[in-house]
């Protein structure tokens, strides 16, 4: 199967020799990794190993922290995202992000979903309402909220909020969706809904998900990368990582011997 | 306020009865203030509702300091303009009698006030008053006791009060009564007349001097010293204050100074000036504010001077 994936898959991200420092502290060391199209890629590793740092580098959100410095390349569909010609706005509409804590805007559900299309200049009411419905349906939220689209998003439960954030992200039809522990603030039922959702979304989107639940990684991902202290120790098909990892440290981690 | 120059564009110099507008700015003597404010209000309510007369009461000297650079239309004063102030005017090309007109408004009686509970100093001679206020009369520290003045008075320290040097009243007292000799060092000089009234009305051993008007408004709190100018003690009242009357020794005229250039340029200033010296102005209202009016002939003379300006 490993062979298979490699051959048939298109590369979305090609990360080359990525290093990253917070001031003087190096948080990522020499990461080399290819992220594949229409696959769910899980990033696992103990706390502080650089998972969030890495995923935030993929849409350059990390640059909001002023002390950050990077070297290396991240090629997104062949273009280095660090290149001067790359417009952040464009990169980030193509690469959506879902955060650990649901972070809807304190606006109506309607305004939340359509935030992206609106700021990017879509004004046509008909198009907007189409986007609204499609995105909410795709995020498996439509039925629950269709009668209260004008309510404030903060009236929703945590799990619904997180799906709303996913809908908001889908509304601009991204190419990749980055998720940083999207279920860690949710209860088990909400978690399983989101996991199901990820399952269906991967047909259309490439998904990178950080998780600290190995069960979750095993359940939903196709590929898994194991990070440790800023290094990518191992990256392979998920079943290989969880059944026969090549590296002793990966094995220790996935069998619960540390972390 | 100092925007007198900027005004005066919208004048329609026609007949006397015309509706005037614009500003008239008055500042200066605090003694004159109640009278001038009264005149101003009468003018605005009964004569020219369109004109805005602003009255301040910074003190006579302070008034001249604003008048000389042209910030005012009128400067009220409880003393006549000083030579040095005339000189400063002349530096600006203004001459008293031509560019600046002096009007006596009324007569004021400088009143020595004491506390209601003071039972001894109700009558004093002018010399006693002068001596007690002079520095070094009794001792170098100027700590003066009532008993220093008359042996049978209490052996308690006198608290001297008065308006500060901003005020014409101070200067009148210092120049005309003390003959420019140093005042006691312990004197407590204040900017606001209200402060003086409070201080004296609450201190048995206090004595202060100011215009009769401020005493007249506060007769329930203060009593006036009856001054003996040689012919027996005289109580200051509207009947005794006057140049030929018993309280003449402490009587002084109060003034207002008009910037005649402004009066020529701006009809409302001239019109107001005429009102001030008219029979409805100072002459009529002086008594209400504790001043004795001047003889009618004086006001008539001023009217004539103003008529000349309007030609």
């Amino acid at each position, binding site marked *: 199967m490993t062979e298979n994936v490699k051959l048939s898959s298109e590369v979305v991200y090609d990360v080359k020799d990525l290093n990253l420092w917070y001031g003087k502290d190096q948080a990522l060391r020499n990461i080399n990794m290819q992220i594949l199209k229409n696959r769910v890629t899980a990033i696992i590793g103990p706390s502080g190993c650089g998972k969030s740092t890495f995923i935030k580098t993929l849409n350059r959100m990390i640059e909001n922290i002023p002390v950050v410095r990077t070297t290396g390349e991240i090629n997104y569909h062949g273009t280095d995202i660090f290149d001067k010609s790359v417009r952040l706005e464009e990169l980030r*509409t193509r690469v959506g992000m879902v955060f650990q804590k649901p972070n809807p805007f304190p606006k109506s559900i309607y305004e939340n979903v359509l935030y992206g299309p609106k700021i990017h200049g879509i004004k046509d009411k008909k198009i907007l309402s189409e986007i609204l419905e499609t995105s909410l349906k795709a995020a498996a939220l439509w039925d629950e909220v269709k009668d209260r689209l004008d309510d404030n998003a903060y009236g929703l439960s945590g799990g619904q909020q997180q799906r709303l954030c996913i809908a908001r992200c889908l509304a601009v039809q991204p190419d990749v969706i980055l998720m940083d522990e999207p279920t860690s603030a949710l209860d088990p039922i909400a978690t399983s809904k989101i996991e199901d959702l990820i399952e269906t979304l991967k047909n259309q989107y490439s998904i990178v998900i950080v998780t600290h639940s190995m069960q979750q990684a095993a359940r939903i991902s196709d590929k898994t990368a194991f990070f440790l202290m800023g290094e990518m120790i191992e990256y392979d098909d998920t079943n290989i990582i969880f059944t026969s990892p090549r590296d002793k440290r990966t094995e220790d981690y996935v069998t619960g011997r540390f972390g | 306020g100092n925007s007198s120059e900027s005004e005066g564009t919208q004048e329609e110099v026609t007949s006397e009865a015309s509706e005037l507008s614009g500003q008239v700015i008055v500042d200066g003597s605090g003694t004159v203030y109640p009278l001038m404010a009264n005149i101003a209000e009468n003018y605005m309510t009964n004569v020219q509702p369109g004109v805005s007369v602003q009255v301040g009461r910074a003190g006579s000297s302070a008034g001249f300091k604003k008048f000389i650079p042209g910030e005012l239309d009128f400067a009220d004063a409880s003393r006549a303009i000083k030579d040095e102030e005339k000189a400063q005017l002349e530096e600006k090309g203004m001459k008293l009698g031509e560019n600046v007109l002096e009007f006596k408004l009324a007569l004021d009686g400088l009143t020595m006030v004491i506390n209601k509970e003071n039972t001894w100093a109700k009558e004093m001679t002018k010399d006693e008053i002068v001596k007690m206020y002079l520095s070094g009369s009794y001792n170098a520290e100027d700590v003066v006791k009532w008993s220093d003045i008359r042996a049978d008075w209490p052996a308690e320290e006198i608290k001297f009060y008065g308006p500060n040097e901003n005020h014409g009243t101070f200067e009148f007292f210092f120049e005309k009564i003390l003959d420019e000799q140093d005042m006691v060092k312990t004197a*407590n000089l204040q900017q606001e007349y209200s402060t003086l009234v*409070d201080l004296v009305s*609450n201190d048995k051993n206090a004595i202060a001097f100011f215009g009769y008007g401020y005493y007249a408004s506060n007769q329930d709190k203060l009593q006036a010293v009856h001054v003996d100018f040689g012919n027996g003690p005289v109580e200051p009242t509207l009947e005794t204050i006057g140049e030929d009357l018993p309280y003449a020794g402490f009587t002084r005229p109060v003034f207002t100074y008009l910037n005649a250039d402004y009066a020529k340029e701006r009809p409302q200033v001239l019109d107001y000036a005429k009102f001030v010296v008219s029979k409805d102005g100072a002459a009529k209202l002086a008594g209400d504010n504790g001043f004795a009016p001047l003889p009618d002939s004086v006001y008539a003379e001023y009217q004539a001077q103003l008529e000349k300006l309007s030609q």
Partner: protein
Amino acid sequence: MGSMPNVREMIQLNISKNKNTSDKIMPKFLFVTASISILTTVGIILTLVIDAAKFFSSVPLAEVFSTNLSPLGANPSFGILPLINGTIFTTLIAMLVAIPFGLSSAIYLSQFASESKRKILKPMMEVLAGIPTIVYGFFAYSFVTPLLMKIIPSLEAKNVISPGIVMGIMIIPLVASLSEDAMNAVPESMKEGALGLGSTRLEVAFKVVIPAAISGIMASFVLGISRAIGETMIVAIASGSSKAFTFDITRSMQTMTAYIVEFTSGDAGSGTVGYYSLYAVGLLLFLFTLIMNLLAQYISKKYREEY
């Protein structure tokens, strides 16, 4: 998702068309406005310094630091010590009122009061803090002074006790709320630790909370002092304008702020030494309060609790 329009393309088109005008202009506009705000400081310092310089160039320093203040006389003299003296006394009296009552209120509110009492008391204190100083001035003049004169017969009608006390009352909410903030910043766990050892609330307050919050509390005192130094209308109304250099608080004294008010309402004719003396006093006042504020910031930073 057949009906879904191709949003991705529409957006891409818009992004490439968008010239980001507001993104380019707004930061510049904001920078300009921010600069104006900041230039005010510079403006204040400049006006004060320029006019104060004119004052100092015409008055010898020995005279400035003398006790002889008679700015309006025939031979004016500009000794500043009576004003500093008056300022110190009113501030001292104010803080004698504000510190004990402010701190007590803070202790009560943060350590003893039930939530429901706090909810009533705090807003009422805020009301107290929001009353204009002219109102306090009127109150000092028309109520506190007459009352005090009944208690202290030798008190003069204009004195520094009455405005000092009223100023202190005015500053209570400031001291109380800043001290309370500092006390509330002490971690709950530390208070629990003390309570868990069998401490009474009082012991928690004095042995744990206040020592831990001491820097914030001191800073609140210093800010209170700064406020007292700068307070104007209360003293202008209730303490008179005597320029005598005296230590007798039953008598009238003049503060730096009251001097400015007296002088401008009396004699602000521009270009005179007296006019410039306003700015010299203003500069001094500015420096005093600045030093107090910096001191407050320094204290709360330097002794920032180590927990």
